[in-house]
């Protein structure tokens, strides 16, 4: 096996957390290498450059790796899961194909046991992360509006995305009901920002932004990290983390772009492979010393998977709205976020208000929901749908349950022969009650907005793609995989910085918090460089 020159820090994965980590650690002047299994994606590759832009959302830019099937993807057996897995393998990871919605966790999300008597408290709190949230907002470039009474104070550096016709339509309905709403924070630049051009309302944010207005780490953190000396090596798929005679991480065995097996030695190894990829890698790194997988003395690697059930409730207004022109999500509501025992469940959800979609996807959605018939009446009915769509997402917190887990599939393998992950996941009764409550509230809002043809999708195929909880953080090595600053209890030079380390999931899109956590862990490491392995 070919060996490489030793590095100080080896980061595996270049997505949300790996990029933030690399940038933050770069000022130590250590030799830092990141291995990424995917490619750089050029802005000219994104679908909105071409006439087939809507179709490609269902092919090479689908958010499901199983559907997308690029040679840089690995398959996931999610047949036994109520929700399907979404991710992206390339420089920037999931940030390349996220919606750029940018809520933070709430302070109460870190103290669910103390406040609501369920699950576990995190070993850190919101206030420890606050300055890293702020730093990350500057780095990613956030558009939003200060003063929201539903969330702790924050100061987005750019003005919010426009309400548009659709946002104003929702706002009138919410005001009529007397419920909270606020323009969403997003990482879509509304002004020129740090080399990025302002949004021009391509309306197709999820499968990559050709304008570069949407922040993904390939255009935010990575150029700065590389300029600061970090090396990023693409098309390198890591098979396993090896350990030395002292039980410390020695480095990683990976396959390079030509399929050659190589060994990369490192002083410190940092996993940033998301809540599926990280437990997969740890379980694939089993050895005589670590027979149940690396860093898995607790038995919790792969367990407590949380995926954020996310019903979508839609309807159609009489008025002509924004359709697919403009960023997808325009508002949020925190009206039902904090626990209220009278609702019959604990914890809560964010409501996210979406615009419509392009002409082809409007037809696909309409047909799937039974609103668009085939035959002579197709054209008349289609014109009642296009540019009239309203849709509200119910971003539910699902709580950790050990039976929801990632294991290694006994049969399925990726193109390098590495065992693929298998997902076993069910939605709990508490979450189901929360989902139904949210669906009913969304229907009230749409009715207040004058919408008809209401339709609720309880689980949306492949959405939202939030992969959390499978290597949780905590003080107790018997009840957690990493400590309160991301270091594995079992392997003192092995760190995890992605969504795996989440203790609970909150009811928000996770990327803001994933990156704030990565910056926090990097800061903790920098403060302890002389005693990092003690």
């Amino acid at each position, binding site marked *: 096996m070919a060996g490489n020159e030793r590095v100080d820090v080896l980061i595996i994965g270049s997505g949300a957390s790996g990029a933030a980590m690399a940038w933050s650690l770069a000022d130590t002047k250590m030799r830092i290498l990141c291995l990424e299994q995917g490619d750089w994606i050029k802005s000219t590759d994104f679908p909105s450059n071409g006439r087939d832009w809507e179709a490609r959302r269902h092919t090479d830019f689908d958010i499901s790796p199983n559907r997308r099937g690029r040679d840089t993807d690995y398959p996931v057996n999610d047949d036994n899961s109520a929700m399907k897995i979404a991710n992206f393998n390339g420089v920037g990871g999931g940030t390349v194909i996220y919606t750029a919605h940018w809520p933070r966790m709430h302070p109460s999300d870190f*103290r669910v046991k103390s406040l609501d008597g369920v699950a576990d408290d995190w070993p850190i709190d919101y206030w420890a992360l606050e300055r890293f949230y702020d730093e990350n907002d500057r780095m990613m470039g956030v558009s939003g509006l200060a003063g929201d009474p539903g969330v702790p104070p924050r100061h987005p550096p750019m003005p919010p995305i426009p309400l548009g016709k659709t946002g104003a339509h929702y706002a009138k309905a919410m005001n009529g009901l007397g419920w909270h709403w606020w323009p969403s924070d997003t990482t879509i630049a509304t002004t020129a920002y740090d080399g990025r051009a302002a949004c021009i309302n391509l309306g197709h944010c999820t499968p990559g932004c050709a304008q570069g207005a949407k922040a993904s780490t390939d255009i935010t953190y990575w150029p700065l990290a590389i300029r600061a000396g970090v090396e990023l090596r693409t098309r390198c798929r890591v098979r396993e983390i090896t350990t030395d005679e002292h039980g410390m991480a020695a480095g990683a065995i990976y396959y390079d772009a030509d399929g050659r097996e190589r060994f990369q030695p490192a002083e410190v190894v940092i996993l940033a492979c998301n809540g599926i990829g990280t437990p997969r890698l740890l379980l694939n790194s089993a050895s005589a010393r670590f027979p149940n997988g690396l860093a898995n003395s607790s038995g919790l690697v792969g367990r407590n998977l949380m995926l954020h059930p996310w019903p979508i409730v839609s309807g159609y207004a009489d008025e002509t709205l924004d359709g697919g022109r403009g960023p997808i999500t325009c508002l949020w509501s925190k009206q039902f976020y904090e626990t209220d025992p009278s609702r019959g469940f604990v914890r809560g959800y964010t409501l996210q208000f979406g615009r419509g979609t392009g002409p082809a996807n409007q037809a696909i959605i309409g047909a799937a929901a039974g609103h668009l018939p085939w035959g002579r009446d197709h054209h008349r009915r289609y014109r009642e749908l296009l540019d009239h769509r309203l849709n509200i997402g119910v971003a539910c917190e699902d709580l950790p349950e050990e039976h929801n887990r990632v294991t290694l599939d006994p049969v399925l393998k990726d193109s390098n022969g590495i065992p693929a992950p298998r997902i076993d996941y069910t939605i709990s009764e508490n979450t189901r009650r929360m989902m139904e409550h949210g669906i009913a509230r969304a229907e009230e809002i749409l009715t207040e907005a004058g919408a008809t043809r209401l339709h609720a999708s309880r689980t949306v195929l492949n959405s939202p793609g939030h992969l959390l909880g499978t290597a949780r953080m905590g003080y107790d090595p018997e009840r957690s995989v990493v400590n309160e600053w991301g270091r594995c209890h079992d392997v003192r030079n092995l760190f995890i910085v992605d969504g795996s380390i989440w203790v609970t999931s909150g009811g928000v899109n996770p990327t803001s918090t994933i990156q704030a956590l990565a910056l926090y862990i990097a800061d903790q490491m920098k403060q302890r460089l002389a005693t990092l392995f003690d």
Partner: protein
Amino acid sequence: MDNNPETGLSATELRDLSDIAGTMIPESPAFGVPGADDPAILGDIARSLGRDLALVREALAGIAAKSVGAFAGMDRDRREALINDYYAGGGAAGAALGRVILAAYYRDDRVLLALGMEARPPFPKGYTLEQGDWSLLDAVRNRPPFWRDDRSAAAGKR
């Protein structure tokens, strides 16, 4: 029977696809649009089957079986009823058939122009999005904070 190397379909399957697509989305002089069996649109559909080829072939076979091989000879009402019934219960195959037809149909220049849309990709021109009425937010601005502050003794109360 040889399949077309570009589409993966046999000549019979392509003819069946044309009959089915034209039934699903027929030409409409009233709306000024072609049908999905228009040669240019049908060609686009056939060329874009890609990873959906197996499912679309399954759908074609399913519809043929449902019509006892006589789909093209059925009257229009029966064809439309059969297609709507098949799509509603057709699972992944029906969904794939609908998706590839709609994705190609709603990017045709004539269809987009008839809808009052520009026949172009979103980038680089983009679109205009009006700001909207921000005074609507006044009703919310003056609400007191209602997120739970875990540092206060009142945490847990709202």
